[in-house]
Structure formats: structure tokens, C-alpha cells
């Protein structure tokens, strides 16, 4: 072990020696600096390893040969080792990144940089308060120097503001320190911690000044305008160092001095942190400059960390785990993002589309964004989980709400930015220059997010039992992304099949049903992937990630495992959805609704865990506190995924704009994750009563019924075929919710069987319509027509699909509906039943329109030569049709096993089976007989039509004979346009986008608020100083309750 | 007692000098007033039995700082004149 004092001696010695280097020796100076920083990193990492692996004891470093408090001492403990490692690594890679710039600047530049790293190292290790002050000054002077590495009006002004602010702050710090000395006769932090508090008010005030200065160093809202200016103007490499280095070290100082504060002060601190977290993310909403945006995010994240410190009384021994996992995520991600920004060199986030020119950087960009928000497998995910769980166990719901709102706001701008980078047009942008010394640090930090994430999960008592193999397989596909589609597709199918084979014996109950939907369904939809040519980069990792998440839901033994899988699935599906050409806004709203839903689930799981001995899923069945809330939170969380009315606005766009084979994945398979969640929830918790008399499930039943009607109505009024299907999914998921809400054997039987058939018919329809769209290059139905002649196979698919969808006999959709009405009758929910019945009628409307507008009528001129849909898109369709027909002819092959699964939970009121003859309380039904009868009728009618069809008269499509004016747009006179105009007149008011409007209003309001708040940052350095002083006075008043 | 009187006088003079430094329109006067505040402070330090501090304040606080102020001020003035 190298003594930690050598970190200081090396950095300082080299800094002093650099003065000897002339201008011609800049490379030498640079090399020496890098070596020194590398050595410093080595020392601190060696200590860190010593603490982790060999359980070393912390070591004090005494200076001047005297024991403290008589001389200054430093401490190298576990925490210090970690933080100095972070700082030195940031310094090392930061220097590598800034290599060219530093070389141009010369030895003064190296000196400044080493000075900053040195200062940060000492403020982490020192145990002497005045020494802390001195080295804080060192780092702030050095920072002021770093800011002006690029010299222009902006950097100089920002640097000056920074100097003004830190000048005031350190003055006040000094004042506090000297009075602390006066009252205690010591400057040693350990002595202060032993004294803790004195009866004299002056001592309390002195401590307050010390602590508030450290808080101010952390840039609390609103006294942080100076910090933002620095982030915006400084060179990105420098901003990375400030964000990763200075913020990290200042955080540690706060952590170190935390015990000095009274419990009241800790609460104030938590409040400051939360205000900063929410305020800063709110103001970030309107920001378009990437570096300033990162500044807002950085300040916000530090605010979150401050909140965690303030709440340490509640978090207890988990404080360290939570704070560190979030801090390290922030450290890695923020440095990485700033570094990327330095390569991209664009001052508008919209111009970041240029990032697509470099795949590696694009991937890293995504990794950092997800790390920052706290998605698995990154460390902050586990930190946030523990944070919310521990706060819930202390009944601190206010903080949970605040933290989750802040995170959501951060998600808004970060994902918008990611969306811009992924989707906006970058055709006319010149490429940017990429140098290896700039990419290397970013890549290392990107890899580190995974390593640290794995490490963090391995030391978490519950995270370590999660099965990470599916996710690892998905990530492995990143490495083979260069292979052609057919290879990757085959591998993906094999992987899924193998995993299903491996998992199959362990599946039982509903897990088996949904496992089949997820995995068999996944394999079937993947087959369509063979239709794609080339490499189809970035598809397979995310498709498999989504399936990994879905599998994880079924495998989950603990609530953490479930939530983890849920988030993995969200990430995967987000990237699948955003692949669509016009998907950017829809993917964003999908992500935001998913995040919102996930946070509700998180809160729900957290409250459910209160007082439990473990996190097993089974704990949901005996929730000890606020069970109604847990139920509502989880249910609403799941409903965002099933797109219930009110939470559905993300779905149509996301599903409709997705690629041909992605639409069935997200619409037919992904939505079932929400259903699976609801099934799990309903089984575990049963019904809950609000205020003792209103049943939540009863309300959900209404919601399901209304969703079914509205979803179908909206589907009926779509012009876009895929949108129509998407809305239809909303409707069907409404049925399912309604069925589950019946809480009876038949209700569940219908809900689960519709889940299965919905997977089949919706995949079928989306694939078929997707195949058509693939060929005709439009999704507007009135632009199609008559395609039956060109695409008979697709026509047949759609025909089968809509028959099942509309619940017509003979196919299995009918059996579902039949059971449905039986269940409604048994439950005596007549009104809701009527709504469901009504929605069934509307389903006829849109299914008819779908087949009529697309396949019947006259063929468009431009479609005369159109070919049948690609072979590989037809294959899965006909596989599904085969299964559908089998289920229809032999319905008990589907219903009987499902009934068996349901029986343990709802033993009474099931169907009685004799062969294919099912008997319920209200009647009987024989699938096979119906199948034959209907087919007979159908054939009869068909023959009759063929014979009589010759008399039919053809009408031109654009026939305007009956109109008095020349149409403004040709489609207005097309019969297939606004097909149900008369219905729209009658009930169109119901489908006006009020809900969409409401959500848009919320978004606009938040943006306007953010815009209003950020006006306090008027750019005047003096105003910022006034903010600082006012902040001190106000926090003083809050802390002491008066002067 | 005499020390007390000197202290009071020094204090008053320092406060006046400080106010002049903040309020006087002429920058040169302001700089000199700030330097004087510092200089009187070093006298005060002698009274407070702190000769080391007095020496430092006199040489650095009032001496060098004022000098640098003037350097910069003149640079700026000349810069203005050139426009």
C-alpha cells in the first residue's frame, strides 16, 4: 500500500515541477501530468481494493508528527478511498480527453488542472476544518482557471461570476470556522463531532454558517445561477470535470460534516435538496443548449443527493448504499455526457441528430441517459429503489412524491434529447471530428456503468438473486450487431426457443399462459424479421431486451425482480418503438407514461414492503399498511401499460408508427405485461375498498367498460389503418380489464382467453396490414382499396383476424364473448355489460371498414402492380391462422386449461365441458357445431354472391357528380374518407381528444412554469450574489425559526 | 484607557475609509481608501498583540493588493483611452 500522502505529494510536486518545463516541452509536461494522475488513481484505487477485498482498517495520516487536534490530519477510509478514486480517475481521463487543448495551453494549464484535482483530494481526506477551507479555495481558484481554458466573453464572464459567488461563500465559511474555533478551541472535525453542540447559540450559528457554505457549494436552487453559467460556457471537458469532480467532492464534504447539523437542519437540508432537484429539472424543460441542460441536470442530481443526506435519519445504514449508487451513476453519466457534448460541438439539442454518424457515441449517449434516469441494470436503479422503499417504511410519503416528480421531469428533457439524437433529420449536418483520446474516456466510463451496475446489484441483498442472463443475452447482441439479419434473427429465435424450453417446466398457473404469449408469441413475431434485408442494426438487442424483461416478469420472485424486469422491458420496447420513421414524439410519450407508471408501481411496491421481512411477491397478499393505496398505485401503474382510458394517449402513435413486425410485438405482446401485472395484483390482493365502501375493482370494471367503448369508437374514426388497429387494442384491453374486474371464474376465463386470442388476432392483423403498408407505402385507408386482387393472402389473414376480433362466430373470439356475457349476467353488472355490448357493435364498424376500405372496392391506379406482402411476413400470419382455427374448432383445447388454472382461485361458476359442449348457468354452446354451421352459411352466401355479382355496377372512386363544387382535397370526395361521417356527427363529441388535450395542457403548464422560474437567472452576477445572501438569510430563518 | 481610545478612533477612521471606498465615485480615491482601511487594520493588529498579522496585512493586504489594484485600474483606464 502506498501511503495516501503520496497522492498529494505527487500531484503537488509535479505541479510545481511543471514550471520548469518550457513551451517546447508541452508534450512532456502532459505526459508527466497524466502519469502523476495515473499514479494518484492507482494509490486511491489500491486503497479502495484493500478496503473491499481485504477489509483493511481506515488509516489516519498525521502531518507534522503530532497527533490531532494539534496538527492537521487526513483520513483514508473506505469512503475516502472511493471518493478519491473517483476524483483521480476523473482527473486522469479528463486529462486524456483534454490532451490537445492542454498541449496548446501549456504548463499553466496542467498546473491548474493538477491543482484542482489536488484540492479535491485533500478536501475529501482532511479532518481539519480550516484545512478544508484552504483546499476548497485551491479547488475554486483552479476551477476559475479551468473555466477560461477557452477564452471568450462567455467563459470570462462565467468565470468571474463563479469567482464572485465562491468568494462570498468561502468568506462566510471562514467566518463560521473561526467562530467554531473560538467556541471549542479546536479545528479538528472529529473533535467537533464529539462536541456536537454547545448550549451557546453562537456555536449553533457558527456551525450553520459552515454548513450553509458547503450547501451553497453544492449549488442549491435558486442560488445557483453562477454554476449554470459555468456549465454552459466552459469547455465540455472542463464542465465534465466540474460536474464529476467538484460536485462529487463537495458532496462528500457535506456527507462528512453532516453529523454537525441538528436533526432540524437535516430536514431543512432535505428540503433544499428536493427544491433543487425539482426546481432545476423543471427549469431544464425549456432549455435547448446541451451543456446548460446538463448543468440543470447536474445540479438537480446533486440536489437529489443532498435530499438523501438530509433524510439519512430515515434511511439509516442504507444511506451510503443509496447515495453512493446514485452518485456514481451521476458521476459516470454526467462526465460521459459532457465529454460527448465536447465531441459533437452543437449548441442546440436538436442538432444532436448528427450524433448518429457515430454509432459508438450514440450507444454511449443512450447508456448515459438511462444511467442518469435510473434504469436497470445501472447502479442508480437500485439506489432509487432502496431510497423509495426506506422512505416508505418511515411513512415519509411527501419525499417519495417529490423525488419521483423530479425524476419524471428529468426524464422529459433527457428522453426528448435522446429522441432528437435518434430521429431528427441529420442529412445536411457536417460530420464531427472524432479522436481516439476523446472517445476512450467516454467508452471507459460507459463500460464502467455496467460494471458498477453489476457490482451494486451483487451487493444488494435482493438484487443479487435476480436472473441477469436474459438481459446479458440481449446485450450480447450489441456485439454481433454487424451480422446480417437472417443470422441474427435465427440466433434470436433460437435463444428464445431455448430459453422457453429451459423455462417451460418451471412455469405454472398464469405464468404458463403469459409465458406462452410472451415467448411463443415472441418467436412467431420474430419470424417476420426475415423479411428485412441488410443488418437491421439496433433491432435485436432491444427486441431481446424487451423479451428479457417480459420473461423476467414471469420469473420474478421478488417485487424488486418484478420492477427490474418491468423497467428492462420498458427500455427495450422504447427503442423498438422509436425505430418507426415518425415515432419520435410517440416514443417520448410512451417513455414518459411508462416512467410515470413505473414510479407509481415503485411507490406501490415500496408501501407494500413496509413491515415485511422480505420482498417476495407473496408479500403483496398481506400488505400491512395502506393496502388500498398499494392496490391503486400498482393498478394504475399497470394500467399505463394496458393503456386504459386516460392513460392511453401514448399508444396509438407508438403502435401505429412502429415498424411492421414491431407493431405486433408491442401491441399484441407488450400490452399483456400490464395484464399479467393486473392478474398478479388481483390474485394477491383481492378487492380493496376506498373509504370502507367503494370497491376499487368495481371502479376498474367501469373503467374497463368505458375504455372498451371509447377505444373502439376512436378506432372507428381513424383514417390510418395501423392507428385503427392500435385503438382497437385499447378497446380490447378494456374488455380484458373489465373481465378481470368481474372477479369470477367466467370473467377471468374470458379475460385470459381474450388475452391469448388478442395476441393472435392482433399479431395477425398488424402483420397483415403491415405487409400491405409495406407494399403500398401508405397507411391511409382511403388511399388503398381493391387490394384483394393483388394481395389475397393478406386479405384472408385480415378476414380471419377481424372475424375473431369482432367476436363473430365461428372463431375463438366468439367463445370469449359468449363467456363474457355469461359472466356479466352472473355478476349482474347490467349497465357495464350494456356498454361492453355496445362496444362490440362498434367493433363491427371498424372491422368492416378495415376490410372494406383496404381490400374491397376499386384498385388504385398506382397499386396495379403491387405485389403480395413479403413471404416472411405471411409465414407467421398463417401459423397464427392455423392455431386460431384449431382453437375455434376445438375450443376446449384453449378454454379448458385456462379454466383449470383459474379454478383454484375462483372455484365456482365455471363451465361444464362435455367434449366440445360447454354449459354455463345461462345456456350452452358447442364450438365445433357452430364452426361447421357458420362455415356452411358462409359458403352458401359466397356461392350466391359469385353467381349474382355480374349485375353490380361500378362507380368511380372520385365521383363528384353529386357535389356542387370542386373538392378542396380529393380525399374529401372519396367514399372511404371519413367513412363513418354520419356516426361522427352523432357521437363524435365523445371522441374529441379531450384527454390528449388535458395531458398536453399539463405538459405546457410545466414548461411555462419552468420558463417562468428560470427568469430569475437574469445573467447578472450581482443578482446571483443577492440570491446567495438571501438564500442564507431565508434558510437561517427556517432553521432557527427566527433571528 | 489610551489604547481603548486609539482603538475607537482607529475603528471610526476605518469605517469612514471603508465607506469612502464603497461610495466614492473616483476609483483612485476608492482604491486608496480601501488600502487605508487595510493599513489601519494592521495598526489595530499591533494593538491586538498580533505583530505577525500586522506585518502581513501591511505588506500584503494594503501594500501589494493596492498595487495590483492600481495596475489593473490603469490598464483599464488606458484601454478606455485608446478607444
Amino acid at each position: 500500500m502506498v501511503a495516501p500522502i503520496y497522492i498529494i505529494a505527487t500531484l503537488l510536486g509535479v505541479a510545481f515541477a511543471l514550471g520548469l518545463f518550457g513551451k517546447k516541452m508541452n508534450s512532456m509536461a502532459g505526459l508527466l501530468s497524466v502519469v502523476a494522475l495515473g499514479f494518484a488513481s492507482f494509490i486511491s484505487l489500491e486503497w479502495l481494493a484493500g478496503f473491499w477485498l481485504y477489509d483493511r482498517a481506515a488509516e489516519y495520516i498525521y502531518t507534522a508528527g503530532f497527533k490531532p487536534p494539534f496538527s492537521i490530519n487526513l483520513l483514508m477510509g473506505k469512503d475516502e478511498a472511493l471518493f478519491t478514486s473517483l476524483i483521480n480517475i476523473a482527473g486522469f481521463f479528463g486529462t486524456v480527453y483534454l490532451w490537445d487543448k492542454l498541449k496548446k495551453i501549456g504548463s499553466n494549464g496542467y498546473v491548474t488542472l493538477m491543482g484542482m484535482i489536488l484540492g479535491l483530494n485533500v478536501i475529501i481526506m482532511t479532518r481539519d476544518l480550516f484545512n478544508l477551507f484552504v483546499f476548497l479555495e485551491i479547488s475554486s481558484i483552479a476551477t476559475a482557471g479551468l473555466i477560461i481554458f477557452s477564452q471568450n466573453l462567455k467563459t470570462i464572464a462565467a468565470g468571474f461570476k463563479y469567482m464572485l459567488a465562491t468568494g462570498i461563500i468561502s468568506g462566510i465559511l471562514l467566518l463560521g470556522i473561526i467562530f467554531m474555533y473560538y467556541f471549542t478551541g479546536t479545528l479538528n472535525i472529529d473533535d467537533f463531532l464529539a462536541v456536537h453542540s454547545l448550549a451557546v447559540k453562537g456555536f449553533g450559528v457558527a456551525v450553520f454558517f459552515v454548513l450553509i457554505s458547503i450547501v451553497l457549494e453544492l449549488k442549491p436552487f435558486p442560488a445557483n445561477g453562477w454554476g449554470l453559467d459555468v456549465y454552459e460556457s466552459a469547455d465540455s471537458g472542463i464542465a465534465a470535470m466540474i460536474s464529476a469532480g467538484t460536485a462529487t467532492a463537495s458532496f462528500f464534504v457535506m456527507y462528512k460534516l453532516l453529523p454537525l447539523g441538528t436533526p432540524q437542519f437535516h430536514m431543512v437540508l432535505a428540503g433544499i435538496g428536493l427544491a433543487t432537484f425539482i426546481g432545476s429539472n423543471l427549469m431544464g424543460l425549456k432549455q435547448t443548449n446541451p451543456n446548460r441542460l446538463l448543468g440543470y441536470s447536474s445540479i438537480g442530481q446533486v440536489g437529489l443527493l443532498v435530499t438523501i443526506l438530509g433524510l439519512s435519519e430515515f434511511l439509516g445504514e442504507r444511506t451510503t448504499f443509496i447515495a453512493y449508487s446514485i452518485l456514481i451513476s451521476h458521476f459516470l453519466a454526467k462526465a460521459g455526457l459532457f465529454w460527448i457534448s465536447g465531441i459533437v460541438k452543437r449548441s442546440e439539442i436538436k442538432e444532436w441528430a448528427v450524433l448518429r454518424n457515430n454509432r459508438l457515441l450514440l450507444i454511449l449517449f443512450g447508456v448515459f441517459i438511462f444511467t442518469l434516469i435510473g434504469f436497470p441494470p445501472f447502479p442508480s436503479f437500485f439506489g432509487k429503489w432502496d431510497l423509495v422503499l426506506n422512505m416508505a417504511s418511515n411513512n415519509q410519503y411527501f419525499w417519495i412524491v417529490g423525488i419521483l416528480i423530479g425524476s419524471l421531469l428529468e426524464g422529459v428533457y433527457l428522453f426528448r434529447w435522446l429522441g432528437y439524437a435518434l430521429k431528427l433529420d441529420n442529412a445536411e449536418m457536417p460530420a464531427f471530428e472524432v479522436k481516439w483520446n476523446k472517445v476512450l474516456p467516454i467508452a471507459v466510463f460507459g463500460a464502467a456503468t455496467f460494471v458498477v451496475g453489476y457490482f451494486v446489484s451483487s451487493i444488494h441483498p435482493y438484487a443479487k438473486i435476480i436472473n441477469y442472463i436474459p438481459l446479458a443475452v440481449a446485450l450480447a447482441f450489441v456485439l454481433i450487431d454487424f451480422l446480417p439479419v437472417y443470422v441474427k434473427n435465427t440466433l434470436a429465435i433460437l435463444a428464445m426457443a431455448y430459453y422457453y424450453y429451459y423455462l417451460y417446466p418451471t412455469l405454472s398457473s398464469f405464468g404458463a399462459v403469459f409465458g406462452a404469449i410472451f415467448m411463443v408469441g415472441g418467436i412467431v413475431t420474430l419470424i417476420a424479421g426475415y423479411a428485412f434485408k441488410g443488418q437491421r442494426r439496433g433491432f435485436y438487442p432491444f427486441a431481446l431486451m424487451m423479451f428479457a424483461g417480459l420473461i423476467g416478469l414471469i420469473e420474478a420472485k421478488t417485487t424488486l425482480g418484478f420492477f427490474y424486469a418491468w423497467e428492462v422491458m420498458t427500455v427495450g420496447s422504447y427503442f423498438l418503438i422509436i425505430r418507426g420513421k415518425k415515432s419520435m414524439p410517440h416514443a417520448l410519450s410512451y417513455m414518459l407514461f411508462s416512467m410515470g407508471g413505473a414510479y407509481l408501481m415503485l411507490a406501490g411496491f415500496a408501501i407494500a414492503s413496509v413491515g415485511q421481512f422480505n420482498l417476495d411477491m407473496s408479500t403483496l397478499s398481506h400488505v400491512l399498511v395502506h393496502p388500498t393505496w398499494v392496490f391503486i398505485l400498482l393498478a394504475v401503474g399497470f394500467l399505463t401499460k394496458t393503456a386504459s382510458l386516460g392513460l392511453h394517449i401514448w399508444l396509438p402513435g407508438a403502435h401505429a408508427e412502429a415498424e411492421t413486425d414491431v407493431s405486433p410485438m408491442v401491441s399484441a405482446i407488450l400490452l399483456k405485461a400490464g395484464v399479467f401485472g393486473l392478474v398478479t395484483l388481483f390474485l394477491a390482493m383481492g378487492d380493496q375498498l376506498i373509504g370502507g365502501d367503494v370497491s376499487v375493482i368495481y371502479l376498474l370494471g367501469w373503467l374497463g367498460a368505458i375504455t372498451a367503448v371509447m377505444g373502439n369508437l376512436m378506432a372507428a374514426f381513424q383514417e390510418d389503418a395501423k392507428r385503427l388497429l392500435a385503438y382497437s387494442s385499447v378497446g380490447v384491453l378494456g374488455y380484458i380489464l373489465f373481465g378481470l374486474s368481474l372477479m369470477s371464474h367466467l370473467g377471468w376465463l374470458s379475460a385470459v382467453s381474450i388475452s391469448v386470442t388478442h395476441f393472435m388476432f392482433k399479431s395477425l392483423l398488424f402483420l397483415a396490414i403491415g405487409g400491405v403498408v409495406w407494399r403500398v407505402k401508405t397507411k391511409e385507408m382511403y388511399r388503398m382499396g381493391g387490394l384483394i386482387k393483388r394481395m389475397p393472402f393478406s386479405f384472408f389473414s385480415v378476414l380471419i383476424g377481424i372475424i375473431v376480433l369482432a367476436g363473430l362466430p365461428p372463431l375463438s373470439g366468439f367463445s370469449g364473448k359468449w363467456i363474457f356475457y355469461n359472466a356479466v349476467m352472473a355478476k349482474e353488472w347490467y349497465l357495464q355489460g350494456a356498454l361492453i355490448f355496445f362496444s362490440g357493435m362498434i367493433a363491427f364498424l371498424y372491422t368492416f371498414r378495415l376490410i372494406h376500405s383496404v381490400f374491397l372496392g376499386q384498385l388504385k391506379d398506382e397499386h396495379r402492380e403491387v405485389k403480395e406482402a413479403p413471404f416472411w411476413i405471411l409465414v407467421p400470419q398463417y401459423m397464427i391462422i392455423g392455431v386460431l382455427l384449431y382453437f375455434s374448432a376445438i375450443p376446449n383445447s384453449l378454454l379448458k386449461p385456462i379454466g383449470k388454472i383459474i379454478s383454484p382461485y375462483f372455484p365456482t361458476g365455471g363451465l361444464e365441458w362435455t367434449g366440445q359442449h360447454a354449459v354455463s348457468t345461462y345456456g350452452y354452446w358447442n364450438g365445433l357445431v357452430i364452426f361447421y354451421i357458420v362455415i356452411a352459411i358462409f359458403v352458401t352466401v359466397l356461392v350466391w354472391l359469385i353467381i349474382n355479382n355480374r349485375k353490380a355496377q361500378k362507380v368511380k372512386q372520385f365521383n363528384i357528380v353529386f357535389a356542387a363544387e370542386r373538392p378542396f382535397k380529393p380525399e374529401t370526395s372519396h367514399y372511404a374518407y371519413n367513412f363513418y361521417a354520419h356516426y361522427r356527427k352523432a357521437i363524435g363529441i365523445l371522441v374529441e381528444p379531450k384527454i390528449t388535450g388535458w395531458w398536453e395542457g399539463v405538459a405546457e403548464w410545466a414548461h411555462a412554469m419552468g420558463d417562468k422560474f428560470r427568469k430569475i437567472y437574469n445573467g447578472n452576477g450581482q443578482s446571483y450574489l443577492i440570491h446567495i445572501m438571501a438564500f442564507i438569510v431565508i434558510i437561517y430563518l427556517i432553521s432557527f425559526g427566527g433571528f | 484607557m489610551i489604547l481603548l481610545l486609539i482603538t475607537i478612533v482607529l475603528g471610526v477612521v476605518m469605517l469612514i475609509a471603508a465607506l469612502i471606498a464603497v461610495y466614492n465615485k473616483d476609483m483612485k480615491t476608492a482604491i486608496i481608501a480601501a488600502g487605508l482601511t487595510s493599513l489601519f487594520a494592521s495598526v489595530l493588529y499591533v494593538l491586538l498583540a498580533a505583530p505577525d498579522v500586522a506585518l502581513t496585512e501591511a505588506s500584503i493586504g494594503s501594500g501589494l493588493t493596492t498595487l495590483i489594484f492600481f495596475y489593473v485600474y490603469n490598464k483599464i483606464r488606458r484601454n478606455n483611452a485608446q478607444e
Partner: protein
Amino acid sequence: MLRNSLILLVLLGFAAAVFPLVHSYEAKDTLTGVAEHYANYGKEEVGAANLVSAVVVTYRGFDTLGEVTILFLASAVIGLFLKVSETHTKDSRSVFFKSTEILVTASRLLVPMIMLLGAYIFINGHLTPGGGFQGGAVIASAFALLLLSRPQKQFSHKLISVIESISGITFVFIGLLGILLAGGFLDNHIFAMGKFGTLLSAGAIPIIYILIGLKVGSELTGIVRNLKESQKVG
């Protein structure tokens, strides 16, 4: 005006906030805490007659190292600003008053004496008031005087940085010697303690103070020189 009243309000608030500090002040009769230890044992432990020096150089020597670093960094950062003016622009005008014959003559006479004074101050830092910082500042003021009187005069930048660097490195090195030969980083017992109250006493303190004096002097001179040379910086 509204702005100023608001500021006044804030300032009054701040004054009210610091009031408890003044209010809790009580005159002391005797030393307590670490100061008591320094007073009673400083003589044996460190051997410097000037207890302030003992505290500055030994007990809190690490702070002093930091302090030196601050000046070093300030000088480097100022250098960063001025790096553009690599080509030295000649400016014959004095900084704020005309360089007269008297001044030139006086400076010839005074500068060596001031420098000697500075050296005296830092060499005797462990015995009498003053030390490396004060001495360094005095030396720097001598150079400033030179600059005032003879603006055309060039100092060797190289020399200044070499002195600065060598003294800095030696300081760190002596600190490290403390680990090897004595109780810890910056321990002054690496040299003989000598007789209390004489020039060659207090172990490494005189050496360190000389180094500090040289370093501070060269740093401050560097700052002044840099300022002077930054005539036209774009």
C-alpha cells in the same frame, strides 16, 4: 431603488443572523484548547520562539503548503490569461506615474535594501514577527518598485519560474523527508533543533520559511510581472 431596499433587507437579515456570534462573545482570560497546548509545549515540540511561526510552519504546515499552492495557482491562472501575449509588447509608460530620474535613482538604492529586508524577515521568521509570506511579499514589492521605475526592464521569466519551481519542489521534498526521518509529513524535526531562540534553531522551520519566502516572492513577482506584460491581450 427597490433593488437597493431589497438588498438592504437582505443585509439586515444577514446582520441579524451574525448577531448571535457577536452576542455570544466573551472575553477570555486564558488560552484553552489547542492554543493552550501550543503555548505550553510549543517550545519543546517545535522550538520556534515565534509561536505563530511554529503554528504556521509546523503544526499547521499542511495549510501553509496549501497556501503556497494557492498563490502558485493564482499566478498560473493569471498566466493562462496572458498566454496570448507571448510576444512581449514594449510599453514605455509607467504604470501610474511618470518614471522620473529621482525614482530611478531611488529605486537603484532602495531595491537591494528592500530585498535584504525581505530576506531578513523570512530568515528570522521563527524568532521575530514575520516569515516567509511577509518576506516574500516584501521582495515582490521590491520588484514592483523596479517595474515602476524602469518599465522597460525585463525580468527573466525563466528565472522566476525556476526559483518558483525549485523552491516548491524542495518544500514538498522536505515535507516527505519528514515522513522518512521524523514523525510525519512536514515534521520539522528532520534537522537538529538547535538552541532555542537562536537563528539556527527550530529544525526545518528556517529552511521552510526561506523556501516559502523564495516561492512567495517569485510567485508574487510573477503575478505583478504578468500583469505588467498583459498590455494588449485580445
